[in-house]
Structure formats: C-alpha cells, structure tokens
C-alpha cells in the first residue's frame, strides 16, 4: 500500500524533473506555486555544479555554457544515487562518449575519464606507498614471484591514437608540470598514471607497456608474468626504467610472494 507521504514524495520528485512547460495536471498544485522553482532550480543546479566541480578539464575544453547544458541533460537521465556529490558523475565520461553534440570532440570522453581518475585517486583509502628500495632489497632469485599490489589511489589508462594525457593535463588548471599550451599536439596514443603518494594527487605520462604491466599487477599476476605482458604490448619497453618510474610515483602499496603459504611481505 502506498502511503500518503510516499505518494507525495513520488509526485514531488516527478515534478522536480519535469520541465516547466510540460507539467501534467496532477503536479500543478506544486508547480504552479512560484516557490516550487526554488526547489527545482536548487536540485538541478546542485547536480550541474557537482559535475562542473568534478570535471574541470572537460569544462575548460568546452566552456561553461556547453558544459552546463550537457550536464543538465546528464543529470536528468542519471541523477545522483549517492548523497556525496563529490563522487557524482561516474557515468559522465560514458555519457559524453555517446553524446551527439560531442561527436566533433572525440577526445572529450577520454579527458573526462582522467578527470574521473583524479576524483577517485583523491578520495581513495590511505596506504603507505611501496618504497623504491623495496625491490632492490628483495632476494633476486624470488623477484619474478613477487606480486605487486597497486596503491588504492593509483589509476592508469592507455588511450590509443589520441594524446589524451597531454590534453588533460594542459586543461587541468592546477597543473604542476610546466607545459606550454601553444605546443603543437602530436596526434598519437598516450597513457596516464595518477597517484597520491603524499596527500595530493599527482600524475605522469605512462607508456602502453607500463599500463599493461599495471593491469597485470591489478589482476594479481606475479612480476615475471606482468613483465611479459608489458613486453608483448610494447616490445621496446624498458622494464628497469618503467619499474623505477612506477615505484617513484607511488604506484604500489605492497609486494608479496605468491602463492606460497608462508608469504613474505615487503613494505
């Protein structure tokens, strides 16, 4: 049985998402009052503001008017399910990928994905990063058996054919690395690694081999197998240099032998 309170809340929620020029009669007792617009505006603006805060590089690429119009459409089809608006918009990159007005901006969804990575890295659980010396201290004969666990805040992706990382970091306003925005773009594939070694989220370019290596680590594969996958993805991958770069970025939180029962953990 639907209670009076439930049916009121059903009607009110429906009215909030109904466009002012298309209100059915059963909602008019609410929407005909001038004050109803305060609720409608607050709800819609709250969703749009959250997306705008969570996708700053996309915002900078498309401008505020375009962004807010797209965000309003997204909010209507995918309103927040979590009351923590700082994590709202997980589906926004996918929305942009299929958004007809963005067809001329094929890089937009990729840039949005890196904005989303930033949010995920920012709110991820704390964990000490595996020290760069950890592997140097490990017995060499067991190195290939080690399973490196990606840090909870580490996010990475490879983008075929598009310089998504360069586009993203140029449009991320608080970009720490100096990059002249007038530099011509090389229209080639790029990868990115975001980590949070000491509080703030930082980022670095990552090649295809590095992304394949981290994918393998995330799947629980030991170092020797992960290295094979890096090389099969990118034949000229310099494994030693890649490991140094990943460790220095804080990409891992632990290394342990696997699957022996008396496993040894290095931190």
């Amino acid at each position, binding site marked *: 049985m639907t*209670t009076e309170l439930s049916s009121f809340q059903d009607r009110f929620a429906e009215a909030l998402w109904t466009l002012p020029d298309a209100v059915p009669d059963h909602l008019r007792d609410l929407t005909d009052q001038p*004050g109803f617009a305060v609720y409608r505006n607050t709800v819609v603006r709250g969703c749009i503001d959250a997306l705008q805060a969570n996708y700053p590089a996309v915002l900078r690429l498309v401008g505020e008017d375009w962004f807010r119009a797209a965000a309003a459409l997204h909010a209507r089809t995918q309103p927040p*399910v979590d009351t923590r608006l700082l994590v709202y918009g997980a589906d926004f990159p996918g929305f942009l990928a299929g958004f007809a007005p963005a067809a001329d901006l094929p890089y937009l969804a990729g840039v949005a994905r890196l904005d989303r990575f930033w949010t995920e890295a920012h709110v991820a659980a704390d964990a000490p990063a595996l020290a760069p010396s950890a592997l140097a201290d490990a017995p060499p004969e067991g190195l290939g058996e080690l399973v490196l666990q990606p840090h909870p805040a580490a996010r990475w992706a490879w983008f075929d054919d598009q310089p998504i990382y360069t586009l993203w970091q140029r449009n991320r306003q608080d970009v720490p690395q100096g990059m002249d925005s007038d530099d011509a773009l090389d229209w080639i594939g790029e990868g990115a690694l975001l980590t949070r070694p000491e509080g703030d989220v930082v980022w670095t370019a990552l090649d295809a081999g590095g992304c394949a290596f981290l994918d393998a680590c995330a799947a629980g594969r030991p170092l020797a197998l992960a290295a094979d996958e890096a090389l099969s993805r990118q034949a000229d991958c310099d494994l030693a240099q890649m490991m140094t770069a990943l460790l220095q970025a804080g990409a891992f939180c632990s290394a342990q032998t696997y699957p022996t029962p008396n496993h040894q953990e290095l931190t």
Partner: protein
Amino acid sequence: MNAARPSAGLSLKPAHFDQALACDDAGLWFEVHPENYAVAGGPRLAWLDAIRSRHPLSLHGVSLSLAADAPPDAAHLAWLAALADRIEPALVSEHLAWSAWRGSYLPDLLPFARTQAALLRVAGNIARTQDALGRRIAIENPSHYLRIEGHAWDEVDFLQELARRTGCGLLLDVNNVYLSASNLGTCAEAYIDAFPGDEVMEIHLAGHTPDPVLGQALLVDSHDAPVSPKVWALYERLISRIGPRPTLIERDDQLPPFAELLAERRQAQVLLQGQPHEKEALA
C-alpha cells in the same frame, strides 16, 4: 562549542582551511557537511583531522533524508557513524526534510505535510540514526517556499514532539524562520517565541536573497550574503529569552575573505557574551 560557555562558530570551506587552522579566536568552532568528508582516505580527511586537532567541530548533515517515507540508508548511517567516531564532533545535526527518494538523491531539503503518519516516520528515522551513531542528534527547522496541503501539526509543535519522543535536540535556524514566515505569510516573532528553548542545542544564522524575479515576495535561503538586520533582531529576541547557545554563521556561496566571516562571527559572540548563561538567575 562548549555547552557550558556557548560560543559562536563558522561554517568551514576548503578555501579557508589554512586561516581557520591558524585562527585562535577564543571559543571559535567550525561546522562542516559530513557528505564532503565521507571518503575512504586522502587529503580531505587529513584537513579535517588537522582542524579538529585545534578546534571543536560539528557535523551538519544535509542528505540523510529523515522525512523520506523510508528508513535512512544503511550505508549512509555507517559512514556517518565512522566519521563521527573519528572526528568526535561536538554535535551531529540534520534537517526536518527529505532529499533521497527511491534510490535517487535530490540535492535540496524538500518539504512534506506534517501529518501524524509523518511524525511517526520521522521519529522512527531519528531514533534509528541516534542508535546507529550512539549519540543524540539535533534536528533543524527547514526553509519553506510552498504551501503544502494537509498539515496536521504546526512545525514548532512537530519538532517539540519529535524531541519528546526520541530525545533528540533541536537546531533553530533563525534565517529559515524569518524567510519562511515571509514567504508563507506567518509571524516569525511568534515562531521564535514559541520555540522550546530547552531543546535548542545550536542556532544557525545565515543570509538570504530575494528571488531575482519575484523580489521580496520570495526570499531564498541562499547562504551567500551577510546575516540580515532583521535576522539579527530575531536572534537577539531568541537568546534574550532562552539564554546563549552555540551559534553558527553559515556561508556556503559567494565566499568573502575569512576575516569578513570572522567579523560576523564576532558580532554573534558579543551578543552571546552579553547574555547571562542562566536566565533563571535574573529572576
């Protein structure tokens, strides 16, 4: 935020973290929306821990949706309890409103008809929340823009009855009283005078804005302006009757420099210090 010597606090925004951390004004406390800190880890929690190490903090929720015709979300209660355990806030508060419904979040504080069934539902939801947190919470009067059919309870009586049934405290937002009375054509002074003073654990003061089209006929709870003189007058009327209570200056938008907010906070502090703590002592 000391119950024995009530003082004035400020809502805290990330832009002001460094100044807030360094400020040593006597009695200064801060309030945040827990939704912005319900994260697994990272710099936000580290900021909050740092502030908490120097100042009392209160958690003012905006999305628990206690007036929804459904129990509070279990995951929401779990993260709120974990945050409260970590921060040890002076107070946890929420609103007499709903904002989550059938799996969607509607980011506002929405109205409902204060019926007997609604009273039972909200009281049950407050009790569940207090059980989950292991602490008393305070419930705030919301701002109103609509005439809703079917109220069986006056809002002050409804809040008082919730306090009686659940043991919760109340948070009186004087700006909400002012603008709701203005929007609905009721008397703000009568509301303030009728409010049960014994239950008031905290007072909120904020600014409002006339609607861009309707002007004074529709005041919006925008939290983007200084507290208006009429709201200050209602505040003085309130504390001269019930005595001093922890009082928050809320500013969420059009954030001015920290010093400007501190000056407004000192205005509240001066009024609080002018009040004898126990009104009965005057008698």
